[in-house]
């Protein structure tokens, strides 16, 4: 399928490239999180561990005794 690459790829306005220097405020918070691989690594390990392993073990150890 041959499409005019020019037409589809250049939908950016002139000057609309990398964020202007020194303006951290322009990058949304979510994008900053996604830009930080070590933060993502931490979250990717922490969330499943807490929600599954830690919560699961807490539930199991608090099972009441049968009478």
């Amino acid at each position: 399928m041959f499409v005019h690459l020019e037409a589809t790829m250049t939908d950016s306005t002139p000057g609309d490239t990398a964020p202007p220097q020194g303006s951290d405020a322009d990058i949304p918070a979510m994008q900053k999180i996604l830009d930080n691989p070590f933060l993502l690594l931490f979250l990717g390990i922490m969330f499943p561990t807490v929600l599954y392993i830690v919560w699961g073990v807490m539930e199991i150890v608090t099972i009441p005794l049968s009478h």
Partner: protein
Amino acid sequence: MTTLSPPAERIWWKQPLDRLEGTWIAIALVWSLIMFFMMPIWHVYGKQNLSNEAYKTTPEAYMAKVQAMVDQHTVRKETDLQLPVVKPPPGSDVYMLGRLWQWWPLLELQKGKTYRLHLSSMDWQHGFSLQPLNVNMQVVPGYEMVLTITPDTSGEFTVICNEFCGIGHHTMVGKIYVTP
């Protein structure tokens, strides 16, 4: 659109959302929400995935409770193996155990009455599966699961094991009779 060349450097979050992409996201979101809410709806209204209570026990302690019920409320014996059929009073605690390779004892319950069905295993993990309703509960030694059940149809219901437990797994069949 093509991925043969790297994306143009631009602030992607300032690009207007492509209409097709927006539609796709909306459809995927709606379907995800439908599937998510079907889970609690099925749990509450489906009468198949039941909430259970769980208690810590031992096979010996649980066996004692099952035996006590069998001693008190056996009404007859069935098959060559003389398996007891137990008819407990409505509203009471009913006990069934799973062991290699048997669901014991057989139960006779009354339609429209509520019972607390206790389940545990004597040895290995088994899968309590009430057919044809397909109500399923995993049954493990050391833990006593309690299901609150109210039979709403009379007839014969079969209990099979749906957690593979060895050479006799397919012979593990129990029965629950529901009288009108």
